[in-house]
């Protein structure tokens, strides 16, 4: 017997349901087609909101499970699948198996997960990771320039800035915070992410205290995580604006990348050096997230260069 838990709540118990025999086989087939989709069940727990599905195998002697093992893929008895940073097709299917079981009792949870999956699928994509770094955490020793904690497991995308600059909508719907969060939207109406908006309250004044609090509301962590981690930092142009940077991989080197407003994403100088920050003289803090962070905007301004 396979059970599935929709990992979405923080206070309430998560919805759980049992897969039918046919659904078990379907799940196994999907896993065998993409073994990298299996993740440790403990990953992504620091995130608020949708965190994927936890699958538990209750009968290790079942024909379905034994069949999976015989194929050579190591399928654990408990694992996570369908995290926000992964491919989403399997997540949609798993969600569909929930509807007949818990559709009436936990409709809110299903709707919330659907909404987040729809948003992730339709408009907001993460830049895929470097092909040399598979989905499971791999130790690495990156050496980003400048200060900031260098994580053992780094989600260093093999950055092709074309992911952000390749068409007009992508370039104009995403600002520095979208880029830093590795959360690209394709809809101008929800573009130009603002710190804190996703977390329920956008930042107030342009101070380190306000912006950092807003980042924490959006779910950013203060240190490295036990899974592939992106590292970002920000600075403030006093009284005027803020700007974010993110460590990315370019041609095998780890550099700081950024995206000033509607303008193209590009490599930047080390932001810990004031000479590379222009008017953004007040340095903020470093923040970390697993792969990407969901962020939200009010919409792109009417005119962008």
């Amino acid at each position: 017997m396979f059970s599935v838990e929709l990992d979405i709540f923080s206070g309430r118990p998560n919805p759980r349901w049992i897969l039918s025999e046919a659904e078990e086989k379907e799940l196994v087939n999907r896993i065998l087609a993409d073994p990298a989709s299996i993740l440790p069940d403990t990953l992504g727990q620091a995130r608020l909101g949708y965190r994927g599905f936890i699958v538990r195998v209750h009968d290790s002697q079942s024909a379905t499970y034994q069949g999976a093992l015989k194929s050579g893929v190591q399928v654990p008895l408990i694992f996570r699948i369908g995290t926000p940073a992964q491919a989403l097709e399997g997540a949609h299917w798993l969600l569909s198996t929930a509807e007949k079981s818990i559709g009436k009792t936990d409709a809110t949870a299903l709707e919330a997960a659907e909404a987040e999956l729809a948003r992730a699928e339709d408009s907001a994509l993460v830049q895929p990771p470097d092909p040399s770094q598979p989905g499971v955490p791999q130790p690495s020793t990156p050496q980003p320039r400048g200060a900031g904690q260098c994580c053992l497991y780094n989600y260093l995308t093999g950055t092709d800035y074309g992911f952000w600059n390749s068409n007009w909508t992508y370039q104009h719907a995403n600002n520095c915070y979208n880029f830093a969060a590795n959360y690209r939207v394709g809809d101008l109406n929800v573009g130009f992410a603002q710190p804190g908006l996703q977390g329920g309250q956008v930042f107030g004044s342009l101070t380190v205290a306000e912006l950092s609090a807003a980042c924490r509301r959006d779910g950013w962590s203060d240190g490295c995580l036990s899974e592939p981690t992106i590292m970002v930092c920000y600075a403030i142009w006093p009284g005027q604006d803020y700007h974010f940077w993110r460590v990315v991989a370019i041609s095998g080197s780890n550099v700081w990348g950024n995206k000033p407003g509607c303008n193209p994403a590009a490599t930047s100088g080390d932001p810990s050096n004031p000479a590379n920050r222009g008017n953004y003289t007040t340095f903020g803090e470093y923040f970390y997230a697993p792969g990407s962070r969901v962020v939200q905007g009010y919409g792109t301004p009417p005119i962008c260069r």
Partner: protein
Amino acid sequence: MRESLVGKSALGLFIVALFMLAIWSLVKKGAARQVTTMPSVQGAANLKGIASLDVFSGRPNPTWELSDTTITALVTELDQLKTTPSLEGPDPDSRLGYRGFVVELTDQTSGATRQVAIYLGGIVETGMQTTFYVDPDRKTEKLLLESAHPHIDSSLYTYVEAEINQ
């Protein structure tokens, strides 16, 4: 019978004439949309304009509507500038801070829209075609900075003024 036939023929001719008149006016309107150059000073009165100061990264850029006076002055300046085969002047690219002005002009009759991007004397106009201008005295930027004055704070104004005058 004969009068009836004549009457029907006349009606038919009238309908055809009306049809051709309709086609002709559509063609004329379509030709009017194919504006390939910046409207002359005489046409400026028919334009609405929105300007944006491209300067921020996280927050939205300041954006404001241009007055008729500013639009006329802008078009007048552009009329007098030399065109170039390519962009002359620095490309703001992805620098932090001041990256120039972007103006969107809309012809209120035809609905045609053109965009003019200006940065440190180099100008790109896009619409039905792309045209490059050079503005060595940066008059267009100074004009737009003045139009921005009521919409931005003094600190930002002073900063942009210094950038334009560098």
